[in-house]
Protein backbone atom coordinates (compact mmCIF):
# COMPACT_ATOMS: atom_id res chain seq x y z
CA UNK A 1 0.00 0.00 0.00
CA UNK A 2 2.90 2.32 0.83
CA UNK A 3 4.45 1.42 -2.50
CA UNK A 4 1.23 2.21 -4.33
CA UNK A 5 0.93 5.55 -2.52
CA UNK A 6 4.52 6.38 -3.41
CA UNK A 7 3.79 5.46 -7.02
CA UNK A 8 0.85 7.89 -7.14
CA UNK A 9 2.97 10.71 -5.70
CA UNK A 10 5.89 9.94 -8.02
CA UNK A 11 3.64 9.82 -11.06
CA UNK A 12 2.01 13.16 -10.30
CA UNK A 13 5.35 14.80 -9.60
CA UNK A 14 6.74 13.42 -12.84
CA UNK A 15 3.71 14.60 -14.80
CA UNK A 16 3.97 18.02 -13.25
CA UNK A 17 7.71 18.32 -13.89
CA UNK A 18 7.34 17.30 -17.53
CA UNK A 19 4.44 19.64 -18.10
CA UNK A 20 5.99 22.32 -15.95
CA UNK A 21 3.05 24.55 -16.67
CA UNK A 22 1.20 24.44 -13.34
CA UNK A 23 4.15 25.47 -11.22
CA UNK A 24 5.10 28.21 -13.66
CA UNK A 25 1.54 29.47 -13.95
CA UNK A 26 1.08 29.71 -10.20
CA UNK A 27 4.45 31.40 -9.67
CA UNK A 28 4.10 33.84 -12.54
CA UNK A 29 0.61 34.81 -11.41
CA UNK A 30 1.84 35.31 -7.85
CA UNK A 31 4.80 37.45 -8.87
CA UNK A 32 2.99 39.54 -11.49
CA UNK A 33 -0.02 40.28 -9.30
CA UNK A 34 2.11 41.31 -6.35
CA UNK A 35 4.14 43.59 -8.63
CA UNK A 36 0.91 45.28 -9.74
CA UNK A 37 0.05 46.50 -6.24
CA UNK A 38 2.66 49.26 -5.95
CA UNK A 39 1.26 50.70 -9.19
CA UNK A 40 -2.25 50.56 -7.80
CA UNK A 41 -1.82 51.84 -4.26
CA UNK A 42 1.26 54.00 -4.81
CA UNK A 43 4.82 53.16 -4.03
CA UNK A 44 5.06 54.88 -0.64
CA UNK A 45 7.12 52.41 1.44
CA UNK A 46 4.98 52.91 4.59
CA UNK A 47 1.72 52.14 2.78
CA UNK A 48 3.15 49.04 1.14
CA UNK A 49 4.73 47.87 4.34
CA UNK A 50 1.39 48.14 6.12
CA UNK A 51 -0.56 46.08 3.60
CA UNK A 52 2.23 43.69 2.54
CA UNK A 53 1.09 40.64 4.59
CA UNK A 54 -2.45 41.02 3.28
CA UNK A 55 -1.34 41.38 -0.34
CA UNK A 56 0.93 38.37 -0.15
CA UNK A 57 -1.71 36.15 1.41
CA UNK A 58 -4.60 37.18 -0.83
CA UNK A 59 -2.46 36.77 -3.92
CA UNK A 60 -1.15 33.41 -2.74
CA UNK A 61 -4.73 32.27 -2.19
CA UNK A 62 -5.76 33.24 -5.70
CA UNK A 63 -2.61 31.77 -7.21
CA UNK A 64 -3.13 28.42 -5.51
CA UNK A 65 -6.70 28.35 -6.85
CA UNK A 66 -5.46 28.59 -10.43
CA UNK A 67 -4.03 25.11 -10.61
CA UNK A 68 -6.75 23.44 -8.56
CA UNK A 69 -9.10 22.80 -11.43
CA UNK A 70 -6.63 20.42 -13.03
CA UNK A 71 -5.99 18.44 -9.85
CA UNK A 72 -8.46 15.69 -10.82
CA UNK A 73 -9.76 16.94 -14.18
CA UNK A 74 -7.09 15.36 -16.38
CA UNK A 75 -7.43 12.01 -14.60
CA UNK A 76 -11.17 12.24 -15.01
CA UNK A 77 -10.98 13.01 -18.71
CA UNK A 78 -8.58 10.25 -19.68
CA UNK A 79 -10.14 7.52 -17.54
CA UNK A 80 -7.28 7.25 -15.05
CA UNK A 81 -9.67 8.12 -12.25
CA UNK A 82 -11.70 4.97 -12.85
CA UNK A 83 -8.57 2.86 -12.69
CA UNK A 84 -7.46 4.65 -9.53
CA UNK A 85 -10.85 3.99 -7.96
CA UNK A 86 -10.60 0.26 -8.76
CA UNK A 87 -7.07 -0.12 -7.43
CA UNK A 88 -6.37 -1.77 -4.07
CA UNK A 89 -5.12 1.59 -2.80
CA UNK A 90 -8.08 3.25 -1.03
CA UNK A 91 -9.25 6.26 -3.03
CA UNK A 92 -8.85 8.41 0.10
CA UNK A 93 -5.12 7.65 0.16
CA UNK A 94 -4.81 8.23 -3.57
CA UNK A 95 -6.41 11.65 -3.04
CA UNK A 96 -3.96 12.36 -0.24
CA UNK A 97 -1.04 11.36 -2.46
CA UNK A 98 -2.26 13.57 -5.28
CA UNK A 99 -2.74 16.48 -2.88
CA UNK A 100 0.77 16.04 -1.52
CA UNK A 101 2.27 16.08 -5.02
CA UNK A 102 0.08 19.06 -5.89
CA UNK A 103 1.23 20.95 -2.82
CA UNK A 104 4.88 20.23 -3.61
CA UNK A 105 4.47 21.64 -7.11
CA UNK A 106 2.14 24.56 -6.45
CA UNK A 107 2.14 25.30 -2.69
CA UNK A 108 5.83 25.04 -1.94
CA UNK A 109 6.86 27.49 -4.70
CA UNK A 110 4.56 30.06 -3.07
CA UNK A 111 6.27 29.54 0.29
CA UNK A 112 9.64 30.08 -1.36
CA UNK A 113 8.56 33.10 -3.39
CA UNK A 114 6.72 34.91 -0.58
CA UNK A 115 9.79 36.26 1.32
CA UNK A 116 11.34 37.50 -1.92
CA UNK A 117 8.16 39.33 -2.86
CA UNK A 118 8.03 40.57 0.74
CA UNK A 119 11.23 42.49 0.07
CA UNK A 120 9.57 44.07 -2.94
CA UNK A 121 6.66 45.25 -0.80
CA UNK A 122 8.90 46.50 1.99
CA UNK A 123 7.56 43.85 4.37
CA UNK A 124 8.93 44.50 7.84
CA UNK A 125 12.00 42.22 8.24
CA UNK A 126 10.65 41.11 11.62
CA UNK A 127 7.73 39.49 9.83
CA UNK A 128 9.63 37.57 7.19
CA UNK A 129 10.37 34.45 9.23
CA UNK A 130 6.78 34.23 10.42
CA UNK A 131 5.57 34.84 6.87
CA UNK A 132 7.49 31.81 5.66
CA UNK A 133 6.29 29.72 8.59
CA UNK A 134 2.67 30.79 8.16
CA UNK A 135 2.76 30.05 4.43
CA UNK A 136 4.37 26.65 5.03
CA UNK A 137 1.72 25.78 7.61
CA UNK A 138 -1.24 27.31 5.80
CA UNK A 139 -0.78 26.33 2.16
CA UNK A 140 -1.43 22.60 2.77
CA UNK A 141 -4.88 23.61 4.03
CA UNK A 142 -5.43 25.53 0.78
CA UNK A 143 -4.56 22.48 -1.33
CA UNK A 144 -6.67 20.11 0.78
CA UNK A 145 -9.75 22.32 0.94
CA UNK A 146 -9.31 23.01 -2.75
CA UNK A 147 -9.23 19.28 -3.46
CA UNK A 148 -12.78 18.94 -2.12
CA UNK A 149 -13.92 21.72 -4.43
CA UNK A 150 -12.02 20.29 -7.39
CA UNK A 151 -13.60 16.87 -6.86
CA UNK A 152 -17.09 18.31 -6.45
CA UNK A 153 -16.92 20.39 -9.62
CA UNK A 154 -15.58 17.56 -11.83
CA UNK A 155 -17.52 17.31 -15.03
CA UNK A 156 -19.41 20.54 -14.38
CA UNK A 157 -19.47 23.07 -17.17
CA UNK A 158 -17.57 26.21 -16.20
CA UNK A 159 -16.23 24.25 -13.26
CA UNK A 160 -13.60 26.92 -12.65
CA UNK A 161 -16.10 29.59 -11.67
CA UNK A 162 -18.04 27.17 -9.51
CA UNK A 163 -14.81 26.06 -7.92
CA UNK A 164 -13.90 29.60 -6.81
CA UNK A 165 -17.38 30.15 -5.41
CA UNK A 166 -17.11 26.95 -3.41
CA UNK A 167 -13.56 27.22 -2.24
CA UNK A 168 -12.83 30.91 -1.62
CA UNK A 169 -15.21 31.28 1.36
CA UNK A 170 -13.56 28.25 2.96
CA UNK A 171 -10.15 29.88 2.50
CA UNK A 172 -11.09 32.85 4.68
CA UNK A 173 -10.04 31.37 8.04
CA UNK A 174 -6.61 30.53 6.61
CA UNK A 175 -6.33 34.08 5.27
CA UNK A 176 -7.34 35.66 8.60
CA UNK A 177 -4.90 33.72 10.73
CA UNK A 178 -2.15 33.81 8.12
CA UNK A 179 -2.23 37.61 7.95
CA UNK A 180 -2.70 38.12 11.68
CA UNK A 181 0.28 35.89 12.46
CA UNK A 182 2.55 38.07 10.33
CA UNK A 183 1.08 41.28 11.75
CA UNK A 184 1.50 39.98 15.28
CA UNK A 185 5.16 39.25 14.62
CA UNK A 186 5.71 42.74 13.19
CA UNK A 187 4.04 44.47 16.15
CA UNK A 188 5.89 42.29 18.64
CA UNK A 189 2.86 40.32 19.80
CA UNK A 190 3.13 36.56 19.95
CA UNK A 191 2.68 34.99 16.53
CA UNK A 192 2.73 31.52 17.98
CA UNK A 193 -0.97 31.11 18.94
CA UNK A 194 -2.00 32.24 15.46
CA UNK A 195 0.41 29.83 13.83
CA UNK A 196 -0.98 27.07 16.02
CA UNK A 197 -4.52 27.85 14.90
CA UNK A 198 -3.29 27.85 11.31
CA UNK A 199 -1.74 24.44 11.95
CA UNK A 200 -5.03 23.31 13.43
CA UNK A 201 -6.85 24.38 10.29
CA UNK A 202 -4.40 22.42 8.15
CA UNK A 203 -4.76 19.31 10.32
CA UNK A 204 -8.53 19.61 10.23
CA UNK A 205 -8.42 19.82 6.44
CA UNK A 206 -6.01 16.87 6.38
CA UNK A 207 -8.46 14.74 8.35
CA UNK A 208 -11.55 15.75 6.41
CA UNK A 209 -10.51 16.45 2.82
CA UNK A 210 -9.43 12.96 1.68
CA UNK A 211 -12.79 11.49 2.68
CA UNK A 212 -14.88 14.31 1.27
CA UNK A 213 -12.93 14.46 -1.99
CA UNK A 214 -12.94 10.68 -2.44
CA UNK A 215 -16.72 10.57 -1.93
CA UNK A 216 -17.13 13.31 -4.53
CA UNK A 217 -14.84 11.47 -6.96
CA UNK A 218 -16.91 8.29 -6.63
CA UNK A 219 -19.95 10.34 -7.58
CA UNK A 220 -18.10 11.79 -10.55
CA UNK A 221 -17.28 8.41 -12.10
CA UNK A 222 -20.76 7.00 -11.69
Amino acid sequence: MIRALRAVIARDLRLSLRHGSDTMMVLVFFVLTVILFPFGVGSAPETLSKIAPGILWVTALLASMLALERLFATDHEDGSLEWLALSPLPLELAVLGKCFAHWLTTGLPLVVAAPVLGLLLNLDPGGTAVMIAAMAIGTPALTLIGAIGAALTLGARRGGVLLSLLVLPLYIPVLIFGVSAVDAAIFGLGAEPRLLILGGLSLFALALAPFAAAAALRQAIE
Partner: protein
Amino acid sequence: MAEFAADALACIRAERVVFKGLAFTLGDGGALRLTGPNGSGKSSLLRVLAGFLRPAAGRLTWDGADVTKERDAHAARLAYVGHLDAAKPVLTVAESVRFWATLYGAQKPVSAAAAALEAFDLARLADFPVRLLSSGQRRRLALTRLLAAPARLWLLDEPTTGLDTASVAQLESVIAEHRKSGGMVVLATHIDVDLPGADTLELDDFAPESALPVAEPDGLDEVAQ
Protein backbone atom coordinates in the same frame (compact mmCIF):
# COMPACT_ATOMS: atom_id res chain seq x y z
CA MET B 1 -14.88 -22.70 -8.32
CA ALA B 2 -16.13 -19.15 -8.49
CA GLU B 3 -19.38 -17.97 -9.95
CA PHE B 4 -20.26 -14.47 -11.05
CA ALA B 5 -23.97 -14.05 -11.61
CA ALA B 6 -26.57 -11.41 -12.26
CA ASP B 7 -30.28 -11.78 -11.66
CA ALA B 8 -33.08 -9.46 -12.77
CA LEU B 9 -30.55 -6.66 -13.15
CA ALA B 10 -31.86 -3.25 -14.21
CA CYS B 11 -30.12 0.02 -14.94
CA ILE B 12 -31.58 3.52 -15.12
CA ARG B 13 -29.59 6.35 -16.68
CA ALA B 14 -30.92 9.90 -16.82
CA GLU B 15 -34.39 8.66 -15.81
CA ARG B 16 -34.50 6.24 -18.71
CA VAL B 17 -34.53 2.49 -18.25
CA VAL B 18 -31.55 1.18 -20.21
CA PHE B 19 -32.16 -2.50 -19.57
CA LYS B 20 -34.12 -4.60 -17.13
CA GLY B 21 -34.54 -8.23 -16.16
CA LEU B 22 -31.03 -9.03 -17.27
CA ALA B 23 -29.51 -12.27 -16.01
CA PHE B 24 -26.37 -14.30 -16.65
CA THR B 25 -24.09 -16.76 -14.92
CA LEU B 26 -20.37 -16.91 -15.49
CA GLY B 27 -18.15 -19.67 -14.13
CA ASP B 28 -14.39 -20.26 -14.08
CA GLY B 29 -12.98 -19.86 -17.56
CA GLY B 30 -16.27 -18.49 -18.82
CA ALA B 31 -16.74 -15.69 -21.31
CA LEU B 32 -19.70 -13.45 -21.98
CA ARG B 33 -20.06 -11.43 -25.15
CA LEU B 34 -22.28 -8.36 -25.00
CA THR B 35 -23.84 -7.32 -28.28
CA GLY B 36 -26.43 -4.79 -29.28
CA PRO B 37 -26.74 -1.52 -31.17
CA ASN B 38 -25.25 1.76 -29.93
CA GLY B 39 -27.00 2.98 -26.83
CA SER B 40 -28.39 -0.42 -25.91
CA GLY B 41 -26.55 -0.33 -22.59
CA LYS B 42 -23.40 -2.41 -23.13
CA SER B 43 -21.17 0.17 -21.49
CA SER B 44 -23.69 0.82 -18.73
CA LEU B 45 -23.83 -2.88 -17.96
CA LEU B 46 -20.03 -3.07 -17.79
CA ARG B 47 -19.98 -0.07 -15.45
CA VAL B 48 -22.55 -1.78 -13.25
CA LEU B 49 -20.45 -4.95 -13.26
CA ALA B 50 -17.36 -2.91 -12.34
CA GLY B 51 -19.18 -1.33 -9.40
CA PHE B 52 -19.09 2.26 -10.71
CA LEU B 53 -22.87 2.27 -11.08
CA ARG B 54 -25.36 0.81 -8.68
CA PRO B 55 -27.95 -1.40 -10.32
CA ALA B 56 -31.42 0.12 -10.07
CA ALA B 57 -32.84 -3.31 -9.32
CA GLY B 58 -31.72 -6.92 -9.20
CA ARG B 59 -28.78 -8.73 -7.71
CA LEU B 60 -25.18 -9.08 -8.73
CA THR B 61 -23.38 -11.84 -6.89
CA TRP B 62 -19.96 -13.44 -6.65
CA ASP B 63 -20.21 -16.92 -5.15
CA GLY B 64 -23.62 -15.96 -3.81
CA ALA B 65 -22.39 -12.84 -2.01
CA ASP B 66 -23.85 -9.50 -3.09
CA VAL B 67 -21.01 -7.55 -4.71
CA THR B 68 -22.62 -4.14 -4.25
CA LYS B 69 -22.20 -4.66 -0.50
CA GLU B 70 -18.49 -5.47 -0.72
CA ARG B 71 -17.21 -3.09 -3.34
CA ASP B 72 -13.56 -3.22 -2.30
CA ALA B 73 -13.37 -7.01 -2.48
CA HIS B 74 -15.07 -6.90 -5.86
CA ALA B 75 -12.74 -4.19 -7.17
CA ALA B 76 -9.76 -6.33 -6.11
CA ARG B 77 -10.75 -9.18 -8.41
CA LEU B 78 -11.63 -7.26 -11.54
CA ALA B 79 -9.84 -5.36 -14.25
CA TYR B 80 -11.81 -2.84 -16.27
CA VAL B 81 -10.75 -1.40 -19.61
CA GLY B 82 -13.28 1.12 -20.87
CA HIS B 83 -13.36 3.48 -23.83
CA LEU B 84 -10.66 5.67 -22.36
CA ASP B 85 -7.05 4.59 -22.37
CA ALA B 86 -5.96 6.22 -19.10
CA ALA B 87 -2.72 7.18 -20.81
CA LYS B 88 -0.70 10.26 -19.93
CA PRO B 89 0.92 11.78 -23.04
CA VAL B 90 4.12 12.86 -21.27
CA LEU B 91 4.91 9.55 -19.59
CA THR B 92 6.80 6.88 -21.47
CA VAL B 93 5.09 3.62 -22.37
CA ALA B 94 7.12 1.67 -19.80
CA GLU B 95 6.48 4.24 -17.05
CA SER B 96 2.75 4.06 -17.65
CA VAL B 97 2.57 0.28 -17.40
CA ARG B 98 4.88 0.21 -14.40
CA PHE B 99 2.72 2.74 -12.60
CA TRP B 100 -0.45 0.69 -13.02
CA ALA B 101 1.39 -2.53 -12.15
CA THR B 102 2.68 -0.99 -8.91
CA LEU B 103 -0.68 0.52 -8.08
CA TYR B 104 -2.43 -2.79 -8.59
CA GLY B 105 0.02 -4.52 -6.30
CA ALA B 106 2.25 -6.44 -8.72
CA GLN B 107 5.11 -8.03 -6.79
CA LYS B 108 7.74 -7.15 -9.38
CA PRO B 109 6.30 -4.19 -11.31
CA VAL B 110 9.27 -3.80 -13.64
CA SER B 111 9.33 -7.37 -14.93
CA ALA B 112 5.53 -7.62 -14.93
CA ALA B 113 5.37 -4.48 -17.05
CA ALA B 114 8.03 -5.76 -19.43
CA ALA B 115 6.17 -9.07 -19.90
CA ALA B 116 2.87 -7.26 -20.49
CA LEU B 117 4.47 -4.98 -23.10
CA GLU B 118 5.99 -8.02 -24.79
CA ALA B 119 2.62 -9.77 -24.99
CA PHE B 120 1.05 -6.81 -26.79
CA ASP B 121 4.08 -6.20 -29.00
CA LEU B 122 4.89 -2.84 -27.46
CA ALA B 123 8.32 -3.70 -26.04
CA ARG B 124 10.24 -1.78 -28.70
CA LEU B 125 8.19 1.34 -27.93
CA ALA B 126 8.86 1.11 -24.19
CA ASP B 127 10.91 4.31 -23.99
CA PHE B 128 8.69 6.37 -26.27
CA PRO B 129 6.41 8.99 -24.75
CA VAL B 130 2.77 7.98 -25.00
CA ARG B 131 1.89 11.07 -27.05
CA LEU B 132 3.78 9.61 -30.04
CA LEU B 133 1.66 6.46 -30.07
CA SER B 134 -1.07 5.83 -32.61
CA SER B 135 -4.58 5.22 -31.34
CA GLY B 136 -4.27 1.48 -31.88
CA GLN B 137 -1.01 1.42 -29.95
CA ARG B 138 -2.61 3.39 -27.13
CA ARG B 139 -5.40 0.85 -27.07
CA ARG B 140 -2.84 -1.92 -26.71
CA LEU B 141 -1.14 0.04 -23.95
CA ALA B 142 -4.45 0.19 -22.05
CA LEU B 143 -4.85 -3.57 -22.51
CA THR B 144 -1.39 -4.29 -21.04
CA ARG B 145 -2.92 -3.38 -17.70
CA LEU B 146 -4.74 -6.75 -17.87
CA LEU B 147 -1.45 -8.60 -17.77
CA ALA B 148 0.61 -6.19 -15.66
CA ALA B 149 -1.44 -7.01 -12.57
CA PRO B 150 -3.57 -10.16 -12.73
CA ALA B 151 -7.28 -10.10 -11.96
CA ARG B 152 -9.87 -12.88 -12.07
CA LEU B 153 -12.57 -10.99 -13.95
CA TRP B 154 -11.87 -8.90 -17.04
CA LEU B 155 -14.45 -6.33 -18.10
CA LEU B 156 -13.63 -5.08 -21.58
CA ASP B 157 -15.59 -2.35 -23.31
CA GLU B 158 -14.97 -2.45 -27.07
CA PRO B 159 -11.34 -3.50 -26.56
CA THR B 160 -10.77 -3.91 -30.29
CA THR B 161 -11.47 -0.28 -31.24
CA GLY B 162 -8.62 0.86 -33.44
CA LEU B 163 -6.78 -2.47 -33.36
CA ASP B 164 -5.45 -4.08 -36.54
CA THR B 165 -6.17 -7.75 -37.28
CA ALA B 166 -2.84 -8.92 -35.88
CA SER B 167 -3.52 -7.09 -32.59
CA VAL B 168 -7.03 -8.51 -32.39
CA ALA B 169 -5.51 -11.98 -32.74
CA GLN B 170 -3.04 -11.09 -29.97
CA LEU B 171 -5.90 -10.03 -27.74
CA GLU B 172 -7.80 -13.23 -28.53
CA SER B 173 -4.85 -15.36 -27.52
CA VAL B 174 -4.32 -13.34 -24.32
CA ILE B 175 -7.98 -13.83 -23.44
CA ALA B 176 -7.80 -17.55 -24.25
CA GLU B 177 -4.75 -17.87 -21.97
CA HIS B 178 -6.59 -16.02 -19.21
CA ARG B 179 -9.63 -18.30 -19.50
CA LYS B 180 -7.47 -21.40 -19.54
CA SER B 181 -6.15 -20.43 -16.12
CA GLY B 182 -9.69 -20.02 -14.81
CA GLY B 183 -10.25 -16.33 -15.48
CA MET B 184 -13.52 -14.81 -16.66
CA VAL B 185 -14.16 -12.27 -19.39
CA VAL B 186 -17.09 -10.01 -20.14
CA LEU B 187 -16.58 -8.28 -23.46
CA ALA B 188 -18.70 -5.75 -25.32
CA THR B 189 -18.03 -5.70 -29.02
CA HIS B 190 -19.36 -4.91 -32.46
CA ILE B 191 -16.91 -6.94 -34.45
CA ASP B 192 -16.36 -10.66 -34.41
CA VAL B 193 -13.94 -11.47 -31.62
CA ASP B 194 -13.15 -15.15 -31.38
CA LEU B 195 -14.27 -16.36 -27.96
CA PRO B 196 -14.73 -20.14 -28.12
CA GLY B 197 -17.66 -21.33 -26.04
CA ALA B 198 -18.71 -17.84 -25.03
CA ASP B 199 -22.29 -17.01 -24.09
CA THR B 200 -23.82 -14.10 -25.94
CA LEU B 201 -26.03 -11.54 -24.28
CA GLU B 202 -28.05 -9.47 -26.74
CA LEU B 203 -28.78 -6.25 -24.83
CA ASP B 204 -31.77 -5.44 -27.04
CA ASP B 205 -33.59 -8.43 -25.52
CA PHE B 206 -33.60 -6.64 -22.18
CA ALA B 207 -34.67 -3.23 -23.39
CA PRO B 208 -37.92 -1.92 -21.92
CA GLU B 209 -40.95 -2.06 -24.23
CA SER B 210 -41.20 1.70 -24.55
CA ALA B 211 -38.35 4.13 -24.54
CA LEU B 212 -40.41 6.64 -22.58
CA PRO B 213 -39.18 7.65 -19.16
CA VAL B 214 -40.74 5.46 -16.48
CA ALA B 215 -40.08 7.69 -13.52
CA GLU B 216 -41.21 11.28 -13.36
CA PRO B 217 -38.65 13.55 -11.75
CA ASP B 218 -39.10 13.60 -7.99
CA GLY B 219 -41.22 16.39 -6.58
CA LEU B 220 -43.00 17.25 -9.80
CA ASP B 221 -46.40 16.61 -8.23
CA GLU B 222 -45.75 18.88 -5.32
CA VAL B 223 -44.69 21.66 -7.65
CA ALA B 224 -47.88 21.22 -9.67
CA GLN B 225 -49.94 21.60 -6.55
